[in-house]
């Protein structure tokens, strides 16, 4: 009997995939080049408030000359962000596991989680400063951790519970217990959602660390550096520090995105269209 063999969807040759990636990114690269050129041209040509918005060439120069201070400040702040991210995400994922297992708890606590998410967490920076001391990295780490907590909790919980009923029926037909169902169905199903949460959290952690500095922080920190330079109208130095903060944030996000790609090759989002 001839079997019903249908060719599976092809993934494309390596060359074709690389080419496709490049064309995807071409417009963004073009905008970048255009943007920088425009910025430089306008600021120099029209002599626009140079003190507020320095030309990119000067910022680049300052990035080089101040690279030691900027690098150590960046590293100091990144430690705060990363530590907070680690703590906040782990506690959030653990909470999500508990809430997914005992649903009555989650329905009871949901309004509070939603309300807590609407609180301006950053306003608690002065309090954590009073707890751990303004110069201590822990005070900013706590802020970053709390900022990461809710997005990761919500996303993880969603992933754990958005399992199709038939998959649960299937597992029950195998006489599977709750633990097995978690292990084999809920957790793998939740991975894409978890990564979404983790990526969002990287941005929030960086913001928490840097903005937290504004209420008081060590001179070694990037946020304080930005504030200090802006305070003495050294805007080129301030912008250079801002660029460093941005780049760190993007790199953090990208690192998590790469881990996601590596662990989830099976997911629709990484298939060819």
């Amino acid at each position, binding site marked *: 009997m001839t079997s019903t063999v249908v060719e599976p969807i092809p993934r494309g040759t390596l060359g074709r995939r690389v080419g496709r990636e490049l064309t*995807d*990114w*071409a*417009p*963004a690269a*073009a*905008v*970048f080049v255009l*943007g920088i050129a425009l910025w430089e041209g306008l600021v120099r040509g029209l002599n626009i*408030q140079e003190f*507020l918005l320095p030309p990119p060439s000067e910022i680049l120069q300052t990035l080089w000359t101040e690279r030691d201070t900027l690098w150590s400040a960046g590293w100091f702040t990144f430690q705060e962000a990363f530590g907070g991210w680690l703590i906040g995400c782990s506690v959030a994922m653990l909470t999500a596991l508990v809430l997914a297992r005992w649903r009555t708890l989650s329905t*009871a*606590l949901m*309004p*509070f989680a*939603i*309300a807590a*998410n*609407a*609180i*301006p*967490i*950053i*306003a*608690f920076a*002065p*309090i954590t*400063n*009073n*707890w*751990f001391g303004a110069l*201590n990295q*822990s005070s900013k780490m706590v802020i970053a951790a709390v900022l990461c907590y809710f997005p990761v909790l919500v996303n993880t919980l969603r992933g754990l*519970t*958005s*399992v*199709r*009923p038939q998959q*649960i029926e299937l597992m029950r037909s195998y006489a599977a217990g709750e633990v097995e169902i978690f292990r084999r169905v809920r957790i793998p199903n939740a991975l894409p959602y978890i990564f979404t949460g983790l990526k969002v959290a990287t*941005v929030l952690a*960086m*913001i928490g660390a*840097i*903005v937290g500095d*504004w*209420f008081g922080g060590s001179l070694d920190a990037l*946020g304080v550096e*930005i*504030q200090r330079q*802006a*305070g003495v109208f050294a*805007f080129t130095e*301030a912008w250079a*520090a*801002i660029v460093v*903060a*941005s780049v760190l*944030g*993007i790199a953090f*996000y990208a690192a998590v995105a790469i881990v996601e790609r590596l662990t989830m090759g099976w997911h629709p989002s990484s298939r060819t269209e």
Partner: protein
Amino acid sequence: MAGMVAKRVGMFALVLAALCAFWEGFKWFGETTGFALGSFEVNDRTLPHIHDIIGQLFEPSRTNGPLLIEVLWDAALFTAKEAAVGFALGASIGFALGVVLAHSRLLQRGLLPYIVASQTVPILAIAPMVVVWMGGRGFPDWFSVSVISAYLTFFPVTINTLRGLTSADPRALELMNSYAAGKWAILWKVRVPSALPYLFAAFKIAATASVVGAIIGELPASIQDGLGGAILNFNQYYATTPTSLWATNLIAALLGITFFLIVVVVERIVVHRAPEHVA
């Protein structure tokens, strides 16, 4: 129906009471056992009693001055105004940007990375520049704060508008095309309605973000009248009266929650959504 509401309210009160008990319980535990985490100790200064915090609201904010709660109420209203303007500004810009991007894949690929990257630039850093620049142009200080608030608001609205508009059922679009409907008609009759759930999800995030932006934005602008100023002010008195700062944070939290609830109520009225299928 009334029974269900009563049950939910009861559940809410129960959990609230449990959380308060947990707080006080932790405080008692920390103080009796001398629990510490690095330099963090548990005492009346680091973790005041809840009744003390609430009680502080009804004390004068300074000698012979108005009650704390009056001061904070005015500050909250001030910040709320900044946040509301910021929300309106940010949401409109975000929506418009989302509509534009939804209609051009080229623009999407070109601009989206920068829109995402814009959020990694800590607003606080550019806030002083924004304040100085706008002040020079004759805008009142509080408006600069609204601009900063709008900066935090536009991003989730843009992203979700884009997602929502492009998530329209392809078959509904085919139907519209068979009626030779123009792009404008398709936008308002099909894409926007199907984007509403996404929009409201963004508005909920944006509501909180606009309040955060307003509070934080007041700091570089050195505005005294809002909650940001109040936080800085009472931070200075933390050693003597820690409960004042905690009370301020409580009011700030309530402001954020209120903004959020307003969006939730509007959503209930506007959108009727099918429940998610969960197991």
